């Protein structure tokens, strides 16, 4: 069980942060384009889900999985999107993504007067805290797969 990578987007589609831990295959396109493609895909899935839903939605799109990985999604009311790719053995981790938003992003970036919002996070503290938090997760193993 492992975590592959993590993306953080704001409401305008700017990729605020990207980290990877175990990634075996790159997308084959430059990182900037990959972020745009990921954001576009999530935006389309969200509107698709809101149209298809037979009942009124509360949380909306939660996750999807393919034959090899699972993508977990968490969006705040302010439009911040936390996206984590893990392998298939991992169950619902909404609380983990919420923790990344509230205890890491809000505490270390939003509340930091020196961190400008709306662009890639430069804070080294945020990067290292996020890294140690993810490594401490029960479903993260140092050896991939």
């Amino acid at each position, binding site marked *: 069980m492992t975590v592959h990578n993590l993306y953080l987007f704001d409401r305008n589609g700017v990729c605020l942060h990207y980290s990877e831990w175990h990634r*075996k295959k790159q997308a084959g396109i430059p990182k900037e384009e990959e972020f745009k*493609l990921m954001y576009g895909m999530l935006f389309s899935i969200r509107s698709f889900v809101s149209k298809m839903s037979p009942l009124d939605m509360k949380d909306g*799109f939660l996750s*999807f999985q393919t034959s*090899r990985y699972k*993508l977990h999604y968490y969006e705040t009311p302010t439009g911040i999107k936390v996206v984590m790719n893990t392998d298939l053995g991992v169950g619902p981790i909404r609380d983990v993504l919420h923790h990344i938003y509230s205890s890491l992003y809000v505490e270390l970036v939003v509340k930091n007067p020196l961190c400008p919002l709306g662009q890639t996070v430069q804070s080294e503290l945020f990067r290292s805290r996020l890294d140690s938090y993810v490594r401490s997760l029960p479903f993260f193993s140092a050896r991939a797969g």
Partner: protein
Amino acid sequence: MNSSAGRITSVEKFGKHSYLTAMEYIPSFAFFANRLFAIGSQLSPEQGSSGIEVLETDTFKLHCFQTLTGIKFVVLADPRQAGIDSLLRKIYEIYSDFALKNPFYSLEMPIRCELFDQNMKLALEVAEKAGTYGPGS
């Protein structure tokens, strides 16, 4: 539970809460089937990933099965509904038996075969009876 099958070839609606008519669903499904499914595979951090197989929300779960020829069967179900994998394979079987083997059916067209409809209805009823993971439905 409702289901649609194929490359826009047919839409069967057994849904209880549809506020769009069947025809209005089709463009969204077609977009999902063609683009989003493939992007899920392209952005994969692992080698050899398929497209999106299960998409989960808090109100429904979408299952997608792609055959070797590129036909996609898409089923929308309750998140706790079990047995969807076997239902998808059964639908594939019904499709090949009553649509493909039918000499009057042309590929890429909507399916208008009575036996196909009857068997689909039966398969959906069996799947619904197969039960759910949790209490209630």
